[in-house]
């Protein structure tokens, strides 16, 4: 009997296996429960999404689904909210489905909750109208809290009457899920690296005669800028100066800063993955390296990463991670830049606006710091960029505007920035 008794324990191996499998299940459940529970609700989970002012952008219950009554608001918030078919991967309907349905591990699903997001839908409408049918991306965020106030991507679609054959790029939120040639806005990255690595940067002068020769190839500039300080070189967006700085810093240093400042990092926004930008290291001393320091070559940047970087500059070098779900993230401040470097760049960006971008003519009544970009795409057209922030403690807003294939940054992006900021401070 004793023999058989000892062998009887073998059947408890099965019991152990059961407990182990249960543990596996519980871990999986804790991890994915919300996604599982709400999966079969389809693309229109029960619940309501309102913007920061309480405007209903989406509502679904047993009586059906409804969106904003205003067509422009629907279009302007298309990528923010998402669509019933789940085409927009980063839309709230897909990303925040479990919060909408009110899933919790303890209580399971409940019938629909109200989710408030930080965006101001009227600002979205302003930005959408300002883009005026052109493709692009616009973001505005509060750099003291990380709250995203405006996020628009075009072309958009009407979730209420989805188009049968939408234009290319309709399903992509270009703020988060697409990268673009940055052009001169990338000089803000090279500049940060230069301030921290070239001790006599501010004592130096940079010579520009319209072009320079690097490694046997010609580096074109936007004009003949003559002798300039670094401030002037940034305001002039001088390729000769920043090309030379790039060559001096080397590809490794610039790549390191691009990573550190978040431009090539894989960032996330409220748990959803944001596409990472890219920076290819060109050969030392080559024309490629010079171009890569001024945002051409193979450089690619995602608008989200850029506005996050500019927010850090505005906020003294550290950034409150951008968010759509509101407060609670204020402890997630990450320092990506020294306060000293940040304040120097901020001053220079302000100098840009006062001396090169038309100051009060471009931004009446506003004290803006910014950098433009005119990124050559390679087909003869250019993306128009402008990124920067408002120097106003009651309206601490950082922005990025990208208009695809639109031409010069100052001409095409700055008016959109102005309209957006004017609307934002009028709120």
């Amino acid at each position: 009997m004793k023999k058989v008794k000892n062998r009887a324990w073998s059947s408890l191996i099965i019991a152990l296996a059961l407990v182990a499998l249960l543990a596996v299940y519980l871990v999986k459940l804790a991890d994915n429960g919300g996604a599982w529970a709400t999966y079969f609700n389809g693309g229109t989970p029960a619940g309501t999404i309102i913007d920061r002012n309480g405007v209903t952008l989406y509502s679904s219950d047993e009586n059906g689904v409804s969106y904003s009554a205003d067509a422009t608001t629907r279009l302007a918030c298309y990528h923010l909210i998402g669509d019933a078919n789940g085409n927009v991967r980063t839309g709230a309907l897909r990303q925040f489905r479990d919060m909408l349905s009110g899933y919790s591990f303890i209580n399971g699903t409940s019938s629909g909750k109200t989710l408030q997001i930080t965006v101001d839908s009227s600002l979205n409408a302003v930005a959408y109208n300002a883009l005026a049918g052109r493709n692009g991306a616009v973001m505005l965020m509060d750099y003291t809290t990380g709250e995203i106030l405006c996020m628009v991507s075009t072309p958009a679609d009407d979730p209420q009457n989805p188009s049968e054959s939408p234009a290319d790029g309709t399903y992509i939120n270009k703020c988060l899920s697409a990268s673009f040639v940055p052009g001169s806005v990338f000089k803000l990255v090279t500049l940060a690296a230069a301030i921290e690595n070239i001790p006599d940067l501010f004592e130096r002068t940079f010579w520009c005669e319209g072009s320079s020769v690097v490694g046997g190839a010609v580096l074109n500039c936007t004009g003949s800028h003559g002798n300039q300080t670094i401030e002037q070189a940034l305001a002039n967006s001088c390729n000769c100066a920043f090309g030379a700085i790039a060559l001096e810093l080397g590809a490794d240093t610039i790549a390191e800063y691009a990573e550190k400042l978040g431009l090539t990092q894989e960032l996330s926004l409220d748990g959803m993955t944001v596409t990472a930008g890219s920076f290819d290291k060109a050969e030392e001393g080559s024309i490629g390296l010079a171009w890569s320091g001024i945002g051409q070559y193979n450089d690619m940047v995602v608008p989200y990463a850029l506005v996050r970087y500019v927010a850090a500059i505005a906020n003294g070098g550290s950034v409150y991670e951008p968010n759509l779900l509101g407060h609670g993230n204020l402890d997630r401040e990450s320092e990506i830049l020294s306060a000293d470097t940040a304040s120097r760049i901020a001053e220079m960006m302000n100098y840009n606006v006062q001396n090169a971008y038309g100051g009060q003519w471009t931004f009446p009544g506003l004290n803006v710091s910014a950098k433009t970009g005119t990124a050559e795409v390679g087909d003869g057209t250019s993306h128009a960029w402008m990124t920067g922030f408002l120097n106003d403690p009651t309206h601490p807003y950082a922005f990025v505007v990208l208009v695809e294939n639109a031409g010069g940054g100052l001409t095409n992006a700055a008016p959109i920035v102005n309209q957006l900021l004017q609307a934002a401070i009028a709120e």
Partner: protein
Amino acid sequence: MPDISELIGYIIGATRYLMPLLALWVVARCVRSMLRERYEPETWAYLVDLNGERHPVNHWECIIGRSRSADVELDSPSVSRVHASLQRDGDGYWTLSDLRSKGGTFINGNEIDVLEDVRDGDVLEFADEELVFQEVSRDEREWLERRRTAPGRFVGPGVTLLILTLFQAFLTLEFTVTASEEYVLSVCLGFLALIVLEWFCYLVMRSVRRTGFEPETIAFFLSTLGMEVCASSTPDEMFRQVLFLIIGVALFFFLGWWLRDLRRVKAVRWLAALAAMGLLAITVVLGEVRGGAGNWLNFGSFTIQPSELVKVLYIYTGAATLDRLFTRRNLFGFIVFAAICVCALALMGDFGTALVFFATFLVIAFMRSGSFATVFLAVGGAAMAGFLVLSARPYVAQRFATWGHAWEDVWDSGYQQTHAMSAAASGGLFGRGAGEGSLVNITAADTDMVFAVLSEELGLIIAVIAMFAVIALALFTVRNAARGRSTFYVIAGCAAVSMMMVQMGLNIFGSLDILPFTGVTFPFVSKGGTSIIACWMLLAFIKATDTRRDASFVVSRDPKTPDYEDEEYEDYGGEDDEPEETEAAR
């Protein structure tokens, strides 16, 4: 006056949180009673050595030898490690068998071979060790018995059952609110019948003065969950469910009664083997294909799954008494029998049940032989056979291909698993309320995905408690093994709980995409008449291992001991009576 829907909300809201508590209480009481209480062995005889030291004989089947795993350990170099076996039958006759020892075994100086009668006072010699066999006298046995703890002294089984009844009442209450009007009556009657049935069983046990009711309580708890699943998915079949439950309980009593007499049990083992193979053969030939597996027999208006009944016969055939454990031929016979069963099931395409049989085979084979070699050999052979089945049966192969990838094909091969997971998650810890689930609308949810149905409607806590209730039965059976009377009971009991656990594991984790989805049943909970009957019959094997004082009706009282209850002597009718006459006839 609050309006009706508000009232409904209050009812569901309160019971939702109360029911997991009650379920936990019921199972915890059973566990405490089964696993925590003092548990003394039975003593049947003594072997007295020359120094006057008494070695107690605590089982009906004992090994005598030098080995530490021997039941009576003789510390002498001339004694073989496994020297001899001393066995007692249900009537109190003892036999001694030599187990091919080196030094030989002698009774009163005569060398013996196998199954030689031993009587009180005989001198037994194991090589040069000499012991006197001394049966426990009637008075002494009575005195010993009285010192043992009877179950129910610390954890009253009646109270546990009362809590279970309360649980059932709450469940019924929820259904009165959620069930559609035409079925409210049948659902209520179904639960009422369940309550009546369990109290009837309890009273029957009390009337034969058996106080161990924990395995039954657990089975009734699980059956309650089964009724819940039925009431939620197919309320029109409540009557059928109750009917099968009654048949199952009746057969539980029958099999339990049958198992009392070990000689009778042994005599018909080959019949059971034949019946099992016959049933499988009929099914292979006439079986109707459902859900990919041809394991249904159709009798006009109702269908049965013979493979479920074969489970009982399989364990019955597989278990063996101690004397048979030492013959290799017997084990070989069982291996052939098991292989035939598993192959027949594979032929039907019932891959899940084949797996359950195979795992049970491993447990039985290991318990019989104690040899990992046998087990490894079996695993190797089965792996090859399994590979053949997989390549021959596209249906099975597809289920394996889906395994772990259910979310990648939500609308086709992963349909059931993803819906199960979604429903299980949506219930949270406390569930959405009995009858409020949506998973029951999916094909086979009430059999193959019951864990998810329970999670959705009653919550994760109750679903997990159900799982641990089955594990508690297993722990109980393994604990009993140390004090079992015969290896037959111990092996059968362990095989039965192993079978239940494997089945439960495949059921739960198959539906949750953690194991391949094989479509076997959750013991007692899954809907399906034959499955319920088979589970109740397996429970009889578990009851047969319970040798606590007056615990189990399957364990007969010693006929040589007069009946007693507490301090009084009473006559106890039936076959165990008339010990005097047996003695005289001898």
